[in-house]
Structure formats: structure tokens, C-alpha cells
């Protein structure tokens, strides 16, 4: 087994681009999509201060201080087009003597009344001096990891396609047959490949996790180590599924189709890419049977309940499917040991 692991490592290492494909590129890509794919729920509003008596300035400051609002710069002329394009939800025009005009589309804006309340608060008399107000301080966080979670999971789930490609290639070019003739058993052969693949992906996950910690990304959970644990679990699932696929597919060329056209729609359905709760119910019903949902559901449960216990049923399901897939891959490989 140890020899097979060493052999697998050498083969993977010699495969052109393997190290970069499995480590450097995914890490860079994951960090990039964490920045780019911001499925952010922040409300974008435009505030245009047209006051000449200085009353607009404190309102502008107060609105820019609201966490959950992002102030977008625009001119009054462009404002309507930006609303129609979705760039901004509403426009606040600030006039003299604390007056304001809100422009919005006919469909309404979720935060219109909140904006009005803030404007009225700024224009109201100062707070009652008798009362004191305090809010607990929390650590400053940067980007929310959830924004890019779907594509990150998609990347990790499909990462073992490289292992599957190698397995298919070795089967088709006769290398596997020669390895079996040398006395290596099926368990060691597949185990060596799976262990190296899992180790490489875990290394990538560790680096990604470490960089996210360094950059103070918001994991939305108290114990971020659970997040790393779930990525490793995703890697395990990936190894199991792609080991099985390598025994079912004739040509490695089909792997990209499966990665793109099977796992991506599954990711969409699972709520990994968009909030599951805001999906239509038919989509949620389908998504409930998708393995990515079990992973996302586990992360959501840990985020929500600050405990791993509510996530255990999903974790169990992922483990079970991974083991079943890997077991089937072993059986198929054993059954077709001599097949070219």
C-alpha cells in the first residue's frame, strides 16, 4: 500500500500541470471568486446632497454609517438608468431644511422605510440626555465567505476529476493491467490514487482556509475549524464520486461534461450558490436530495446553531455516499481488472 501511495505520488507529480491544477490555480481562483462573486445582500442606494444650507451633510453621514447600506455615487441624470439596471435600489435627493425626495421604481424598495427613519432621526431633536446607549463590540471582519461558497464547493467537488482522468488513462493505455500483473491488489491501487488526491486537495483546503483567516474573512461561525472539516469532507466525497465515475466512463473527455453540466446545476439547486430559503419550493425539494445541499446545509446549521450536532445527519449522509461510491469503484475495478 505504501509503495502504491509513493508510486501514485510520483505519477501525479509527473503529470504535467498536476501540482498547479490541484493547488496553485484553485487557491488563486478561490480567492479571486471570493472577491468577485459577491452574492451580497447589501442594499445599494445613491444619496445626492443638493442642500445649500448644510442640512444634507449629517443625513448623508448617517446613511453612510448604516451597516447594510452601500452608498453608490451617481448623478441625478444617471440615477434612473442605474435603478433600471439594478445597480441601485433607490435614490435619495437631499434638499435644504432637512427635506428629502426618494426616487424608486414602481416595484418598491425593501429599505425605503428604513432610509426614511434614518433621515427623520437626523432631523429630530437630539437624544434624551438621560439615557445611555451601548452596543457590544465585535471583531472587524472583511468579506463573507458565504458569498463564494457555492463555487468553492463546486471546485472542491470536481477537483478529483484529475484523479479520475489518470485512472481512465491508465486503464485505457494498459498501465493498470501491468500494475495488477505485478501483484498489486485493487485496494492498494485505488487507495494510493485516492489518498494522494485527498492529501493534495486537503493541502489546498488548508492553504485556502489559512489565507481566509489571515485576511479576516467572515465565516459566519464561532469555531471556524468546522468549516475546514467540511471542506475536507467535501474532498472525501469528491474522491469517492470520481473514483466511481472513472470506472463507468470510457473516455476521460466526458469528465468535464459531468463536472460542468451535472455538478453545476446540482450546486445551483443545493443552495450553495444562492440562498436556499429564497428559492422556490420545487427547487428546494429537488435540492434536498443533492449532496452539495448536505454540505451547504451542514455549514448553514453550524452557522445558525453554533454547534456541529444539528449538522450530523447531513455529515452522515455525505460520509455514507462517499463510502458507497468508493466501495462501488473498488468492486468495478476488481471486476474489470484486465479490461483495457
Amino acid at each position, binding site marked *: 500500500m505504501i509503495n502504491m501511495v509513493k508510486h501514485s505520488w510520483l505519477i501525479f507529480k509527473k503529470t504535467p500541470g498536476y501540482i498547479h491544477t490541484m493547488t496553485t490555480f484553485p487557491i488563486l481562483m478561490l480567492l479571486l471568486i471570493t472577491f468577485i462573486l*459577491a452574492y451580497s445582500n447589501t442594499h445599494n442606494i445613491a444619496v445626492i446632497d443638493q442642500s445649500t444650507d448644510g442640512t444634507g451633510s449629517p443625513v448623508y453621514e448617517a446613511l453612510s454609517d448604516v451597516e447594510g447600506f452601500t452608498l453608490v455615487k451617481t448623478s441625478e441624470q444617471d440615477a*434612473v438608468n442605474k435603478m*433600471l439596471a*439594478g445597480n441601485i435600489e433607490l435614490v435619495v435627493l437631499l434638499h435644504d431644511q432637512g427635506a428629502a425626495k*426618494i426616487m424608486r421604481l414602481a416595484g418598491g424598495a425593501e429599505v425605503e422605510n428604513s432610509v426614511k427613519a434614518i433621515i427623520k432621526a437626523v432631523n429630530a431633536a437630539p437624544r*434624551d440626555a438621560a439615557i445611555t446607549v451601548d452596543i457590544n463590540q465585535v471583531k472587524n471582519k472583511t468579506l463573507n465567505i458565504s458569498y463564494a461558497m457555492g463555487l468553492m464547493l463546486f471546485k472542491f467537488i470536481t477537483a478529483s476529476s484529475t484523479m479520475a482522468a489518470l485512472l481512465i488513462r491508465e486503464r485505457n493505455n494498459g498501465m493498470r493491467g501491468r500494475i495488477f500483473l505485478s501483484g498489486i491488489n485493487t485496494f492498494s491501487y485505488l487507495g494510493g490514487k485516492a489518498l494522494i488526491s485527498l492529501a493534495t486537495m486537503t493541502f489546498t483546503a488548508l492553504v485556502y482556509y489559512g489565507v481566509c483567516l489571515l485576511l479576516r474573512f467572515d465565516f459566519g461561525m*464561532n469555531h471556524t475549524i468546522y468549516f475546514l472539516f467540511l471542506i475536507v469532507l467535501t474532498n472525501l466525497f469528491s474522491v469517492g464520486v470520481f473514483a466511481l465515475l472513472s470506472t463507468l466512463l470510457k473516455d476521460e473527455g466526458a469528465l468535464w461534461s459531468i463536472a460542468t453540466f451535472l455538478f453545476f446545476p446540482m450546486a*445551483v*439547486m443545493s443552495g450553495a450558490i444562492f440562498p436556499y430559503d429564497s428559492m422556490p419550493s420545487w427547487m428546494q425539494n429537488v435540492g434536498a436530495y443533492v449532496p452539495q445541499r448536505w454540505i451547504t446545509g451542514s455549514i448553514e446549521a453550524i452557522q445558525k446553531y453554533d454547534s456541529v450536532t444539528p449538522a450530523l445527519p447531513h455529515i452522515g449522509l455525505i460520509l455514507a455516499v462517499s463510502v458507497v461510491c468508493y466501495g462501488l469503484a473498488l468492486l468495478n475495478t476488481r471486476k474489470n481488472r484486465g479490461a483495457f
Partner: protein
Amino acid sequence: MLGVSLKKEFLYFFKNVGNLIFVFVLPFLFILLMSTALKDYVANDFDTFDNGAVFYYLDRPTEQSMAHLHRFQEVLAEAAQVKLEEVGDYDEGKRKVEQSEAFGIIKIHESSFSYYRSPFNEPEGGRIVRSLFEATIGKAIPSGDAGISTQVIARPKMDSNAYFTLTGLAFFMMFISLMISNSVIDERRFGTIERIKLSQLGLNAMLISKAALGVCIGLLQAVTVYALSSSVLGVNWGSMTGWMFLVLTGMSIACSVFGAVVGMIAKSKAVANSVVLMSVMLSAYLGGAFSPVYLLENMNVVNYMIQISPLYWAGKSLGSLHAGMLDRNSYLFLSLQLGLVVLFYLLYRILGRRAKLVIEGG
């Protein structure tokens, strides 16, 4: 001769069931999934305050504090439709806040108000509610409009069905380059490219037949999506449908020629697939195929990066045409495509002059 070559291309392409699924099924499936899943995002409706609550715990409050609390309750109900709920155990309330059962908990002790929020999973709605608390507590906020007028713009906004029909279709058309690159690789693997090069047809004819195949695939995809999106999703393509088809045809030509160039450079199908897929996916991420493009346009730096994506310009052009405007976006995109076709054609010509085009072991 060209006709024979074209016929061969079509027969070869359409005898594959996978290709038929790609042309007729997958684009609409993608559009259906994305438009349904991102309906709220495109409409800027995030369910920010849905089922939201804020707990409060009374610890010997003064009458004045209670009056302030009731005023805040009214403000919260009007501004965010969030309710205030009393709890009898402060620590239990804090625990529930950390378990996302409420946005926060306010402890009122005599005349002091302490707001507790979860240190690790405060939702977006909670942040706004906390800001409202900070800005309004202890103040006499007038009800009603109080000098704030509202102007409602009656113009319709593009919904998620229309957005993903147009962007999703353009995204799927980019995969034409993958098919054409594989087709050119096959010509090189089987050695037929040398025969084509030496024949009367020459490599230009091969490019024309590949591009014609690409245009036909693109048009079939467009017609299929047009029919299904109009009938199933109720998308109104508007009065500029002809121009939209012209833009999409231009896109399929550019993608075909790009695929042919990659097919001429790549040493294997795997390399060609990687190059094309990486280009297509990068363009898709930046072009708004997976997220409403406004989210990307609102981000610093990213709002410049997205401009390198042809899909971004395709979306802009198709969006303008959908709104009935033949404007700068469409002219810009058509010019961009023409420029890319010329560039890729020159590359194709240069690469075609290589002495050896056949791939070893092919």
C-alpha cells in the same frame, strides 16, 4: 466542394446525441434554473427583514425608558416590519440571538439601553436594525412622511427571466468554440487537415465550413431559446429581435473562429478543452452569467475587470436591444466582434502555415 465539406460537418456534429442535448436542452435548462434561483436577486429583493425579531429584557426600567422602548417599537415596525419580543431570561435570549432566532437583544436597565448582537453570525437585516436602534433610540421620531416626498418611476425593470434568457443564451453560445476546437483537433489527429491544406479547398474553406457550423449551432440555440423563453417564461423579446439575432450571429462567428485558432494551437483535446473552458468560464464569471451584472458593476476594481469579458458587452448590447434601444452598446459589441474575428483569422492564417499540422500519434 465547400458544400460537401459543410455537409460532412453537419452530419458529424448532429449524429452525436450529446451535441443535440447541448443545442436544444441545456441552454434553456440553465436559463430556467438561473432565472428561478436568482429571481429575488435580480429584483433587489433579499428578504432582508423577513420574520425578523428583536428581543428585549427588562431590568428595572424607568417609565421614561419604557416610553422610549415603545417609540422604538413603532419605528421598527414602520421601518422594517420587525417586531419586539420580551424575554424573561437575558442569557437565554443572548443564546437565541447567537442561534439566529433574533437580530439582537436589548437590555433595559433603569435608563440605559444595551444592544447585544451575535459576534459571529449577525444577518444583513440585523445590521440595519442595529443601525436603526443606534440612530433612533431616545429620539422623538415623527410618524408619517415628515418632509420626505417619494417619486415613483413607472418604467419597467428587466426581470430575471429576461436577464438570464439573454445572458444565458450568450453564455451557452460561447461553448461553440469548444466544439469547433475539438473538431479542428480531430482533423489534425486523423491527418485530414494535411489533405485539406493540399486540396483545392485550402484551410480557408475549412475555417468557413467550421464557422458555418458554429453559426448554425448558434442560430438553432437562439431559435430554441427564443421559442421556449417566449412561451414558457413569458419573455417579450421586444421590437429589436432581428438586431438581437444579428448580435448573436456575430457572437457565434467570433466563437467559432476562436475555437478554430485554439484547435490549431493545442497539442491535444485536453489542452484545447482547458484553454477554451478557462476562457469561457472566466468570461462568464465576469460577464454576469452567474450573478446579476449589477453586483459586479458596483464593486471597485471588479467594475474594470468585467470589461475584458465579451459576455459583459454581449449582455449590455442585448439588454439595450431588449429595452428597444439600438445604442452605443450594440455598435460597440458588433465592432468588438468584428475586431476579434479579424484578429483570430490572422492568427489562424499564421498557424496554418506551419509545416506540420498533424498531431503525433493521432
